[in-house]
Structures are given as structure tokens and as C-alpha cells.
């Protein structure tokens, strides 16, 4: 099993490409939930049945390729160390759920890390497909084709009236969760985000902060996704999500230009202070690091900070996570040790940009 590069690199290969609107949209994701016909859902299925599904996917799909998603690596979660599991979760290649119930769970990950199929998660099959920037339609087309490719060999649990049958009633129908990861620092600074989130919720879409455990969206990164999966076609879901995201982009751009006009110096100060903290601090916790990284990225987007690549946001956000730090150190670290290593990795990474 060669999973080293999934673990060693903080940034997935596909993230290196800039997608449309990539100053604000980090990535687009399509997730399809599917189940194998006539087998109980992982929640209550017997070990033997789940093991059979696990083995089937290994036998049929390990080292197979689909389009440009080449050479799927098959990873049994039970074979991973705690730190390896942690890193794959931090990279969003697998879910915390897959790790929690890991006896017969597995993941099929393409070399470009664009496709990750989780086996025996809450549903038997969860296809995840990522694209950089805002590319929901393209991601959906690719995911549909991949879904058809899997279905050549797997009978799905499907009902004409209810659609794809899933363990949770909130996924039934299309089994689709389309989501977009957005960097919204200006909407956060101006507190407009607090008014926008409830408005979007009312439309059947969800906005939530990712990373971190508190109420605040760490790194000002938000995920927008559909809540309704039944009764709407996948194309409609994706196009509605796309228009919400486009509106958010508009609001964010607007807020950025207002900030630049009304308080350019304050903004510049904020950005350079953050840059200074990242460049010189010797001890830094994840929350402070995320806030500073977000400010620096805003500085890059506004042309205030030059000669630093945008990718630094995606990369550092993973690099500063506990699992990745411990993988890097090759040992378990206390919170204090992590803060020290985090500061030194960030410094090194910024040095690289010079």
C-alpha cells in the first residue's frame, strides 16, 4: 500500500490548479450517497456482509482508473495509524464517521485525490469528487459518469418513487450533497455574514464554518451546501447552489472594495500584522494561525501582499492541523509542542515563497 503521498503532502494535486473565481471559492465538491441493493445499511448490517462489500471494492477497483482519475488506491481504514487517519480527515479525503466505525470501512482514492469513494460509511458507498474553484456543473458531470461506471458492477438500492435509498432520510432521493468552500474574510470583518447565513438557510441551503470546533469559522472559510435532496433534480440543486454562491461572491467582492475605500490603512495594518505574526512568531495556536493565514490570503487577493501564492491558504490550513503536525514530527505532540512546530513550519513555508 502506497499511501505516503496522500499523507505527506498537505495540498492535494488538484488544488494546485486555479479554478474559476478562485480568489474566493476554494473548491467545489459533489457527494453522492449510494447503497448496495439487498444488504442492510452499515448501521446494522452483519460484519460478514460489510466485509464482502469491502473486499468487492478492493478486488474490482484497486489500481483501476477512471478518466483522468488514475490508479485508485484502496485503503482499509483499520490498517491506518491514528495519525494517518487524522491527516486523511484533515485533507477531507475521508470523514470522521468513516474513522469512527472503521472495522470494515475503506476508501478508494485516485492519485490526483479528486475522487475519494468511502466504503461502509453511513451508506455503503459515498462518492466524493472535488474540483478547484467554482465548477459545480463540471464536477456533477464527472460524478455522474463515475457513478454510472460503478453501477456497471453494483446493483444500487433504488426506488422509482423515493430515488436512491440512504440510511438517513435527509439524503434520500438524489443522495446528493453539493458543497462549495468559500473564503469570506470581508463579509466576516464587516459582520454581514451574520445576516446572510439565516437568509441562505431559508432557501434550503446551509452555510457553516469548517475547521475548528467553536462558533467562529476558523480561517473565515465557510461551506455552503444543499439541504434538500428529494424532489429536486441534481441539475437544479447544483444550479441553485451556484447562484447562491455567485451572490455570495458578489457580496464578498463588494465588502472588500468598501473596506479598501473606507479603511484601507486599517486593512493594510491588519494584513501586515498577520503577516508579521506568521513570519516571526515562535509559538502559535491553530486559531490564531488560521486568522492570520486568512488575513494574509486577503492581502494577496487585494494585491497588498505580493510574491506569495494564493495556494498558501489551502496548504497552510491543512499543514497547521494537529494530525498533520504529528505526522510531520513522526510522534505524538502535546498542544504546546504543536504550537511550536506549527510556528516553525509556517515560517519555513513563508521562507519558500521568497
Amino acid at each position, binding site marked *: 500500500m502506497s499511501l505516503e503521498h496522500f499523507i505527506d503532502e498537505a495540498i492535494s494535486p488538484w488544488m494546485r490548479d486555479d479554478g474559476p473565481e478562485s480568489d474566493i471559492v476554494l473548491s467545489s465538491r459533489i457527494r453522492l450517497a449510494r*447503497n*448496495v*441493493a*439487498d*444488504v*442492510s*445499511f452499515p*448501521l*446494522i*448490517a452483519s460484519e460478514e*456482509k460489510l466485509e464482502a462489500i469491502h473486499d*468487492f471494492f478492493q478486488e474490482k477497483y484497486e489500481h483501476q482508473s477512471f478518466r483522468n482519475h488514475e490508479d485508485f488506491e484502496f485503503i482499509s481504514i483499520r490498517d491506518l495509524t491514528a495519525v494517518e487517519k487524522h491527516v486523511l480527515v484533515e485533507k477531507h479525503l475521508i*470523514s*470522521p*464517521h468513516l474513522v469512527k466505525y472503521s472495522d470494515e470501512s475503506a476508501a478508494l482514492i485516485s492519485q490526483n485525490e479528486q475522487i475519494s469513494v468511502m466504503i461502509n460509511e*453511513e451508506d455503503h458507498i459515498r462518492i466524493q469528487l472535488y474540483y478547484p474553484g467554482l465548477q459545480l456543473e463540471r464536477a456533477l458531470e464527472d460524478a455522474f459518469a463515475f457513478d*454510472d461506471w460503478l*453501477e*456497471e*458492477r*453494483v*446493483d444500487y438500492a*433504488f*426506488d*422509482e*418513487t*423515493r*430515488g*436512491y*435509498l*440512504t*440510511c*438517513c*432520510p*435527509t439524503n*434520500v*432521493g438524489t443522495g*446528493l*450533497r453539493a458543497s462549495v468552500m468559500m473564503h469570506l474574510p470581508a463579509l466576516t470583518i464587516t*459582520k454581514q455574514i*451574520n*445576516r446572510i*447565513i*439565516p437568509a441562505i*438557510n431559508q432557501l*434550503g441551503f446551509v452555510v*457553516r464554518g469548517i475547521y475548528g*470546533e*467553536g*462558533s*467562529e469559522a476558523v480561517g473565515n472559510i465557510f461551506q455552503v*451546501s444543499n*439541504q*434538500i*435532496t*428529494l*424532489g*429536486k*433534480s*441534481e441539475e437544479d440543486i447544483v444550479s441553485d447552489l451556484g447562484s447562491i454562491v455567485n451572490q455570495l461572491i458578489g457580496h464578498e467582492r463588494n465588502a472588500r472594495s468598501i473596506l479598501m475605500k473606507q479603511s484601507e490603512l486599517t486593512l493594510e495594518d491588519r494584513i501586515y500584522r498577520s503577516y508579521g505574526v506568521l513570519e516571526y512568531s515562535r509559538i502559535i495556536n491553530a486559531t490564531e494561525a488560521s486568522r492570520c493565514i486568512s488575513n494574509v490570503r486577503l492581502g494577496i487577493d487585494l494585491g497588498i501582499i505580493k510574491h506569495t501564492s494564493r495556494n498558501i491558504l489551502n496548504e497552510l490550513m491543512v499543514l497547521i492541523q494537529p494530525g498533520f503536525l504529528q505526522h510531520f514530527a513522526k510522534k505524538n505532540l502535546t498542544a504546546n509542542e504543536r504550537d511550536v512546530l506549527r510556528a516553525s513550519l509556517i515560517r519555513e513555508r513563508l521562507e519558500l515563497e521568497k
Partner: protein
Amino acid sequence: MECQECHERPATLHFTQVINGEKKENHVCEVCAKEKGYLSYPDEAYSFHHLLTDLINFNASKLDSVENKTLKQQSQELTCTHCGMTFSQFKQIGKFGCASCYETFSSRLDPIFRRAHAGNTKHNGKVPKRTGIDLQTRKQIESYKKELQHLIETEAFEDAAIIRDKIKELESNPRKSEAGDKS
């Protein structure tokens, strides 16, 4: 506006919650939001699950208040023959045990789906490519069989033979899948 929890700090987070079908506006400060766990969804399945159990429990309590004992008894006896899950277990955990649960609990699901999916109860999207064709084939065979029955009854045996061949042709082309338990 002050925070509705501590009444000390100003409310900086404003959001709507749906509890038992009632919309509730919330205005809290960041400290209280953190304490109460608002806006912290590390696992989407988890939060949806809680929302959902609320929805289902709401539904059940409403049924209790309606004094319809037959319906109540039926609901207690609903048990999935494939996986053994009962409707009350489903209510409790908010998850189905298997695909057959959908069939078993079918008569009780519409209100739950309507609440979770903005009034929708029917799928309106993708159909499996391969088995989707099987589905169409099966429908076609059913309609041929009805026609055949009618032709035999009216003693139109020549036409009946043609239809019978068509059915045979459709049936002789079963598409098998490799995964899935067929027992």
C-alpha cells in the same frame, strides 16, 4: 441587541432554528454560541440527525394527540422483515436499517420527508443507468403480459404468439450485477 442567553454581551450571531416545526429566531453572543454549541457542525450527519429526530418526534407526538388508536397500534407493529427495525426504533435513531424499511414504513414517511425536504416526497432526479433500463424492461414485460392475457381470452392466438415471443426476448436478456446479495 443583547444576547438572549447571558443578557450581558451584545448578540453577534443571528440565526433561525426549526424546532418541532416552529421557527425560532436566535440572537446570541459568541461566548454563549460557543457554550451552547450553535453553529458548530464538525460532522454534517450529526447535526442533520438531531434536526431529523426532532422532526420525527414531532410527528409522532402529534399522532399521539390525535386519538386514532388503530393508527397508533399499526405504527407500533410496523417492523421491517428484512432487517428487523421497528418504526419506533427508526423514530428514535432517525436512520433506516435497510432499503426495505422504506417500503415497510412507507405509509408513515411522507410527513417526515415533507418536513426534511421542503414539501417533497418523490424523487425527481437521476435513475441508475443499467438497472434503470431493467426497470423500464420490467414495466414493458408487465404491459405485454396484460396484453397477452387479453389476446388469449379473445382467442387471438396468432397475435398472442407474437407477444409471447417479445416477452421471451425481453426476459432472456437479464443483466446481472456482481455485487449485492441476492439470497
